[in-house]
Structure formats: C-alpha cells, structure tokens
C-alpha cells in the first residue's frame, strides 16, 4: 500500500469554504455545519465574499484551469488576510481543487504568471499562507469535544461510509485516517458516536454522480449506483454516511429506484457527516438540519436514535 503522509489537522481558526453544490442541492449540509461549528465554540468565519472554487466545472470539462487558479488565489487570500487560516471545505472537490491551485500558485509556471497578473489587476493583495482541510478532518480533530456535547448516540446502529473520491483519490497520500483504498476518516468519527461501522464490497467505487453524467449519461449513474448498493445491502446498515453533497445527491436520490430494482424493500437513510453530527448535538431535524430535503426519509432513523419531533 502507498505510504500515507501523516498530517496535522488544525483544531480551530477555520475559514468556512462553502460549496455551491451543497448550497444548491442540500443547503441542509451548510446549516448543519454552521450549527456544529457554533455549538462546539469554534472560531470560524462564514465569509460572504468567498466565491465558488469552480472545481466541478473543471471536472465536467467546461472551464480552463487558468480562471480557476485566479478565483482561488482570491479565496485563499481572503482566508489568509482574515486570520482564519485553516480553510475547511464541506466538498471534497473544493478540497482537492484548492490544493491543485495552491501547488500552481506556490510554483513557477506561465499559468501562475497569468493568474497572478489577473489577481493584481483586480486589486487583490495575494497571500496563500493557509491550510486546506475537509470538515470531516476538523470533526476528527475535535472528536472529544464533539462527543462531550452529544445529546444522542448511535449505539446499537450499523453504519456504512462512503468517502468522496475527490477526497481520497486525488491527494491520495494525504488521507487523514486509513489510506486511499481503505479510508477510515468517516468511520472513526461515526464510531466516536457509538455506531458500529460495517464493511461492504465496492467501498471505494464512485457514487455514480460523474457531475454531468447524472444528467446526460444517466446510464452511468444507474449502473454505478446499482453496483454500489448491491454491496451496501449485503452489510444491512441502518444508515449511510457521506462527506460530499454530490455523493449525497446520487446515493440519496437514486436509492429508491435502485433498491426496488434489486428487490430490496427497505430504505437506507443517507446523511452527510455534518447533518449527522448536528442531529446528534441536538439540532432541530427540520428547521436546522432540513431532513425533508432528502430523497430517502430520515424519520425512521431519528426514531432509532431516539431523537424526538419526527413528523409522521
């Protein structure tokens, strides 16, 4: 197995890098994340000046990399100047995309020169002394604090995890726990709240989103989610935990059709790690966590955990 580089995950002073995918499909991920960071007393900045990182358009293949580098030189400068130097992304694509940009900006290339000329023209004082993290890493770094604040536990429940490919497979030597073939970042956080994390075949398979594929090549999404769920149902989990809005969209919204086609009548609630922790810390399931944005109803899971207020 490839060596995984040990890394120090910063525990505080976070710059919240919001995801346009989360904001578009599951703003519940964002409201939950704010709730968790606020409840744990983190010193964080939710900055309206931040722009989208444009990473998803890079993967779709509809934007050259140069404007992306310029946009993120600005985002990193905002974080750096704000004093909240530890960027936390709730989207794995933002995480890897920012890392790609930082490498170009710290290097020496014609692309860097052109991006910096644009940054100068826009009157931006460039500074990228930042760290780039995913929020799940921040949760792991603060696990004891979160455990002490939890009002509910996952004891007695079986969970499966799906780590976003853009977290594990791009900077594959920098997975905070486990390794890229067998990441255990989400596992350790979920186990910290008492769940038993169970293994399943095709753990590291894509979620099926493929960005534009879900719209233009639904055959891809259908085939991949079918393969993914064929493995997941073998583990018979009570919930599926994700760390990416795109993975959540594909695995949540496509689940009903895929499971029925596989002859499985049960539902497997899909929650993003921020939503799950917000619920465990006592956030209102509807007004804060927005569980009704999910395709698979979350109410049966609330009952299993013992969280009151589930609507019938």
């Amino acid at each position: 197995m490839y060596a995984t580089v040990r890394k120090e995950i910063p525990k505080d002073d976070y710059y919240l890098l919001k995801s346009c995918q989360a904001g578009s499909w599951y703003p519940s991920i964002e409201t939950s994340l704010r709730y968790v960071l606020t409840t744990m007393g983190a010193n964080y900045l939710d900055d309206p000046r931040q722009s989208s990182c444009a990473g998803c358009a890079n993967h779709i293949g509809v934007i050259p990399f140069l404007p992306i580098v310029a946009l993120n030189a600005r985002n990193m400068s905002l974080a750096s100047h704000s004093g909240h130097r530890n960027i936390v992304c709730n989207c794995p694509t933002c995480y890897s995309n920012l890392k790609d940009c930082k490498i170009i900006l710290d290097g020496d290339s014609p692309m860097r020169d052109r991006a910096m000329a644009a940054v100068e023209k826009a009157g931006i004082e460039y500074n990228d002394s930042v760290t780039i993290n995913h929020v799940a890493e921040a949760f792991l770094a603060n696990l004891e604090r979160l455990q002490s604040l939890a009002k509910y536990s996952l004891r007695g429940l079986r969970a499966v995890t799906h780590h976003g490919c853009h977290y594990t497979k791009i900077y594959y030597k920098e997975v905070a726990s486990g390794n890229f073939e067998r990441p255990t970042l989400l596992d350790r956080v979920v186990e910290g709240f008492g769940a038993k994390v169970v293994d399943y075949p095709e753990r590291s398979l894509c979620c099926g989103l493929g960005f534009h594929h879900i719209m233009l090549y639904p055959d891809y999404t259908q085939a991949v989610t079918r393969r993914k769920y064929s493995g997941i149902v073998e583990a018979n989990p009570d919930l599926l935990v994700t760390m990416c809005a795109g993975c959540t969209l594909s695995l949540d919204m496509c689940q009903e059709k895929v499971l029925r086609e596989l002859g499985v009548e049960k539902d497997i609630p899909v929650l993003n790690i921020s939503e799950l922790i917000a619920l465990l810390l006592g956030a209102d399931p509807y007004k804060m966590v927005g569980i009704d944005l999910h395709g698979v109803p979350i109410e049966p899971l609330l009952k299993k955990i013992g969280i009151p207020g589930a609507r019938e």
Partner: protein
Amino acid sequence: MASRYDLEEGPVKVDPIDERFGPSSGMMRCMQCGKCSASCPAALLFEDFSPRDVMLRAMKGEIESLVMGMEIWRCGQCLSCAARCPRDCSPAGVIQALRIAALRYNPDIDYMRQIEDGVKANLNECAQTILPNTLVLPNELLGPRTRKRYRASAKNRKALGYRAEDSRRVEIPEEDLARIKILLKETDFS
C-alpha cells in the same frame, strides 16, 4: 453535425499553459499496464472508452482524434485511475485538458458548450458555479416517492433561509463580485 457556435480551425492543439497535458505532465511515463482501465467504472460500462487507450493515443500525439471523438466525455472523473497508477500519471487530468480543447474544435458537443455558457453566466453574475436550477435530475433515475420529495426541495430550501434561485444564503457583496468579474475577464472566461 454543424455547431451553432463559432469554432476554431485546426490544427487541433491543447493550450500549452495547461500542464495536465504534454511532456511536463508526466503523461509520457505511462507504460500501458491498464490498471486505470481495470479500476474505471466508466470503462466497465462504455465499450468505446478506456483510459489506457486515451493515454496511448495521447502519448502518440493523436490529439485530433481524441478531441474530435466522444470517448473523452465518458469519464466520470472519479480519479481512481490517478490514485492507482503505478507511475503517478493522471488519465483523468489528461481528459480534463482534452475536454477544454474539444470545446474549441469539436462541432458535436454543443450541449457541453451550453453547460459552459451556464457556468460562465453563473460565475459572472453571482460568483457561483452551480445554482439550484443548473442540474436537474432526470425522472428516470428517481423512484415515485423520491420524485415527490425532490419536487418539494425548492419549498424546503426556502424554509432553511435559502432562495430558490441561489446556492448561497447571503449574496456576495457588489465590490467583491466586481473583482471576480475582473479575474474572469483577465483569464478569458467572461
């Protein structure tokens, strides 16, 4: 098929500042072992697509056939190929660079250029890439209960304090949007 867009004349080439393609990308290290194709969920499904084959043709300089063909659009960008490559190449990165070139030359992908137009408008108008109406799930992927719940999402996002048409809760300040427009203009994306 004719394109509704003004396309560039050949010879087809990838922008030289794009280091994901060409000798400086490490692309020439590929030894055709095929770990990428064995790992690839898209290669399993689409008979015309194999990341190993894309790498072979790229190394041989067959850029035109790659850019003018449809294979490069099959990749789902999971990056399993990059993680598993024993020589640290990134077929997915090579494909990203080829897709950008294809937008300038390939007449058969107006639907991708429409997505490009949408992203350009979103970034220039509100500094976002994806908005709630940018990606709409096709009915064929959704079960009957999910369809109903998915249709209610505009109402439910409003209850969380988000607008139906915007992916951010708080609008970007005007002076910041003005700076972003300069960045996009100076990097030829406006």
